[in-house]
């Protein structure tokens, strides 16, 4: 059924129809490699929509991570740099220092931002670098095949915590958004998601506000997107989004943690 619909879309004639919704010019025509139901493609699209709608595509430079979104620059049709694992915020720091008049964002997952790159994350925020940090938290290492992440929940089964995460062997889930919210250099910390159309609209607002504050030089804006990993969690997309609400939100509740004065 799905196959037939896809084929229909590929071959259908749209002559005489009004176009009410289309790919933003900031998104390339490359097909996403992400698994069905994955939050990355939605966040990519929303981020690129915001950049197009704000008319800042020519003045925006992005920094891609290592992880499932390592190829973010295949999809985001703007100038991009691919950073080493964990170092996106250090790279973004330098890009912004060289081009203070441009908009700069980094895009990282939980292993990248909250494990191997924790030092860079904390110190970028503590310097109050005038950039946007987008943090996708799905509590798992997706690209390497579903290993435990710093944000994996207690009891969560992954390939490296097959009996479930325990404090004795792996400590506690790291709430890094709460940590950076304490830092005076950070002006905006919010936790969003993309599991419903309304959540997507909220994320879009948060992104728009962040670029606005970057223009005003308000310091670091940090957006955590609590996301899913149907493949890594071994669930269908629908199951994953339900599990996200039931299990991720109690640990990582959506909403603003800090807003500019």
């Amino acid at each position: 059924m799905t196959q037939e619909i896809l084929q229909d879309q590929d071959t259908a004639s749209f002559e005489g129809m009004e176009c009410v919704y289309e790919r933003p010019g900031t998104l390339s025509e490359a097909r996403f490699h992400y698994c069905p139901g994955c939050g990355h493609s939605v966040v990519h699209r929303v981020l690129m929509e915001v950049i197009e709608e704000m008319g800042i595509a020519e003045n925006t430079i992005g920094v891609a991570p290592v992880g499932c979104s390592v190829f973010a620059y295949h999809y985001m049709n703007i100038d991009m740099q691919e950073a080493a694992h964990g170092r996106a915020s250090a790279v973004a720091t330098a890009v912004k220092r060289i081009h203070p008049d441009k908009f700069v964002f980094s895009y990282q997952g939980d292993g990248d931002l909250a494990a191997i790159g924790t030092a860079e994350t904390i110190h970028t925020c503590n310097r109050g670098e005038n950039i946007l940090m987008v943090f996708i938290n799905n509590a798992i290492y997706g690209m390497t095949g579903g290993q435990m992440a710093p944000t994996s929940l207690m009891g969560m089964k992954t390939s490296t915590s097959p009996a479930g995460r325990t404090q004795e062997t792996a400590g506690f889930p790291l709430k890094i958004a709460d940590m950076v919210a304490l830092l005076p250099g950070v002006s905006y910390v919010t936790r969003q998601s993309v599991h419903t159309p309304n959540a997507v609209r909220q994320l879009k607002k948060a992104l728009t506000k962040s670029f606005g504050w970057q223009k005003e030089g308000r310091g670091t804006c940090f957006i955590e997107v609590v996301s899913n990993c149907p493949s890594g969690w071994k669930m269908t997309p629908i199951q994953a989004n339900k599990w996200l609400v039931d299990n991720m939100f109690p640990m990582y509740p959506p909403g603003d943690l800090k807003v500019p004065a």
Partner: protein
Amino acid sequence: MTVGDVRLMKGNEALAEAAIRAGCQAYFGYPITPQSEVLEYLADEGRKRGMIVLQAESEVASINMVYGAAGAGARVMTSSSSPGVSLMMEGISYIACAELPCLIVNVSRGGPGLGTIQPSQGDYFQSVKGGGHGDYRLIVLAPSSVQEMAGFVYDAFDLADRYRNPVMILADGALGQMMEKVEFPAYDPAAHAVPKPWATTGKPASRPANVITSLHMLAEQMEEVNHKLQAKYRLIEEHEVRYELLATDDADYLIVAFGLAARIAHRAVQVARAHGHRVGLIRPITLFPYPHAIIRSLAERMKGVLVVEMNAGQMVEDVRLAVEGRVPVKFYGRMGGVIPSPDEVAHAVEQMVGQTSDVSMEAH
């Protein structure tokens, strides 16, 4: 040349001053002895003269900031000392693959491990043979005076831009700390600036997006990238070999030494000649590209070659590769931050002369 262009300075400060004059736009670094004066000098003088100077949280962050700034089109550098440079190796490999021009300075100290803060040449392998992962090369310049600590900075930036390749200045703690007269040449950064149409500066509608990356998932694609890099390294080997010769015209014996060890060897040549031994010196200035050809041709008319290093014997391997067994190659070195004296080196020369003047030369 005005009077103000000649100064008495520490090597680290002379290097930092040259970086400002060379139009270096940004410096990212982390304190470590014996090179902290570079960061200190730039945090004061560099900032006053418009340079972006950021004290990073680690050498890991520093080198990735260099990546970001170089990718954004800036003339950029970092500096550190041995343990800190080890931390940078991952980032250097990325920079080499992404072909980003930048300057990395290693004011090296004795190792391995935390080692000592005294001068050493124990990072030769790391600088010249790789250090980070994968098949890449840095252009490596080895100064042997405060004058060259400054002068090589201009060359390093120009070479980096010309080849889109990271350049390393491999100095040591003594060169960083000692004071000598230094003369700053006239240099107009604007005249040396090269266009960087590949840089991430914000994508206008008129061109495709610029992407700085070292990731190429298909093996065949990655091999293509490697072929391109190797072709560039061959070009560098063809055009950029630099060395200095001293008293080699009539020499029967040749010393090979770089950096500080070459200055000590220089004195040892004088001592050995006073004792009646015709000894000459070749000082490789570029450690990559290495002066293999000249060493080979010089060795053909020598009775012996002595390599002097402040390590356990690293560059000696390159000398042996160049000489290819034509003459005996001896080694004299001190390790762990100990600086050999000219007399020690002269003694090593005497020993070589004693061993190699015998008709029945021993094998090595």
